[in-house]
């Protein structure tokens, strides 16, 4: 996904309004673009506060900045700059992260970013995309970068589904279990695992790579009584949105995602999926417990 992002962003630089702001991360990958557009591919060094401040300043002059780093450095380190240098100034930027919740699990806590979407969700009016496949990346970027002035967060990962659904901003039904069936909504690269988890269970599975704005109309059209939300970041991040969308209906909601506990373990992303119950077996256990009659 990162390579696709670099290639796509490099294309966008043909538009003289586009700028890329970096803090060393991926600077080598953008070197050819920087050689062509030295005034609009800006690597500020390992300075994330400045990276976002510069994006705000660029936007104040009418440019469209794309800002890129590791998820925790991009969103958490410079959160006040995101809030004040973009939102409070009334200007926008497109933030594109790599690393996701634990793509580099062996790097430890400093490089984990499970809270990124929840933090962005404290802000107003942001679009958030969590592509589940590299082929979803170009369309997502085009949608949020080109011809728009508002802000967006695009969360790239090394985890991927087998099939791309480029148009799945709105909920897309991948598996239809019929009217009234429990609805599982998978966000981004957890779709394949979710499909494997519900296997032979009568559960409708819908997919989206755009948790904000969440497709609440699609949710209302598809949801019966039971709703299961599977997100590859902090568990429950979209619970408030789903809860509000279904406030007028009796329903039960199960939210699955990354737990808040700091595990202090390394290993691989797949290991962390298993420890957080986000592998197929873990998801199946949670879904079965949720759908089984209380005993």
């Amino acid at each position, binding site marked *: 996904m990162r390579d696709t992002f670099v290639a796509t962003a490099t294309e966008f630089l043909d538009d003289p309004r586009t700028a890329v702001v970096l803090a060393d991360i991926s600077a080598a990958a953008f070197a050819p673009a920087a050689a062509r557009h030295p005034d*609009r591919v800006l690597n500020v060094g390992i300075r994330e506060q400045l990276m976002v401040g510069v994006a705000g*300043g660029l936007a104040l002059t*009418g440019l469209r900045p794309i800002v890129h780093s590791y998820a925790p450095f991009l969103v958490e380190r410079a959160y006040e*700059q995101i809030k*004040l240098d973009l939102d409070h100034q009334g200007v926008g930027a497109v933030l594109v992260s790599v690393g996701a919740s634990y793509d580099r699990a062996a790097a430890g806590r400093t490089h984990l970013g499970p809270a990124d979407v929840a933090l962005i969700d404290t802000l107003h009016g942001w679009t958030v995309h969590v592509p589940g496949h590299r082929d979803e990346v170009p369309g997502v970027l085009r949608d949020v970068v080109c011809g728009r002035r508002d802000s967006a967060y695009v969360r790239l990962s090394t985890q991927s589904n087998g099939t791309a659904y480029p148009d799945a901003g709105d909920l897309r039904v991948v598996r239809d279990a019929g009217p009234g069936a429990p609805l599982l909504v998978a966000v981004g690269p957890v779709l394949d695992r979710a499909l494997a988890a519900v296997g032979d269970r009568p559960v409708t599975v819908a997919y989206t790579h755009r948790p904000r704005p969440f497709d609440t109309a699609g949710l209302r059209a598809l949801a019966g009584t039971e709703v299961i939300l599977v997100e590859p970041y902090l568990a429950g991040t979209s619970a408030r949105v789903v809860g509000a969308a279904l406030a007028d209906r009796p329903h039960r909601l199960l939210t699955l995602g990354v737990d808040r506990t700091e595990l202090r373990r390394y290993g691989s992303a797949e290991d962390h999926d298993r420890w957080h119950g986000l592998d197929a077996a873990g998801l199946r256990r949670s879904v079965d417990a949720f759908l089984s009659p209380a005993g």
Partner: protein
Amino acid sequence: MTTTTATDPALLAALLDRVRADRDFGPNVYSTLDVLQVLYDRVLRITPETVDDPDRDRFLLSKGHAVAGYYALLAAKGFVPVAWLDDQGGPDSRLGDHPDRLLVPGVEIGSGSLGHGLGLGVGTALGLRAQGRTDPRVYVLLGDAELDEGSNHEAIAYAGATGLANLTAIVLDNHSASHGWPGGAAGRFTVNGWTAATVDGRDHAALHAALTGHDHHRPHVVVAVVTDNGE
């Protein structure tokens, strides 16, 4: 290019009194007034008619609490109606205790949390350069205590290293930094390749010379020292 429409000191004092409305102002309000006057009278190429002109000079007030003199000056220059000063901070006022660029004509950035203006100024200077707008200049006003914020030092180092020539920082030095800047604030900039001038922050002629003393090759800092207000 320089405008020379001197602000009548008596008018400015009267406008400041309208903002003040019997409240006590801290020394920072008065220590900033001379720099603001010289900037708006003689340096900045901005008028109420050109607040949206892409080729205007930019003035970014980073120390957003120094707002009373700023509002008074914006009123004196016709950017905002004088009547707005009377209920500053009120429920229907557009003039907060820190300025909001979406509410006040002529205000380039909303500020208040310290350490944001210089990064925004660097980005603004880069954005102007990328669009081939070589004429406008970006001025950012900071306080010496504001320099405590590490974000400023990210901006100082980067602007110096890349020779961001269309940027001027102004440090209003009223010796309010808790731990001081031994050797002076200017050294924090010059070590990173900026040009610098340290002047008496009350001396309008010296301020004008310093504020127009950039060399067009490097970023420039003016340290305006104001220590005679009993802090």
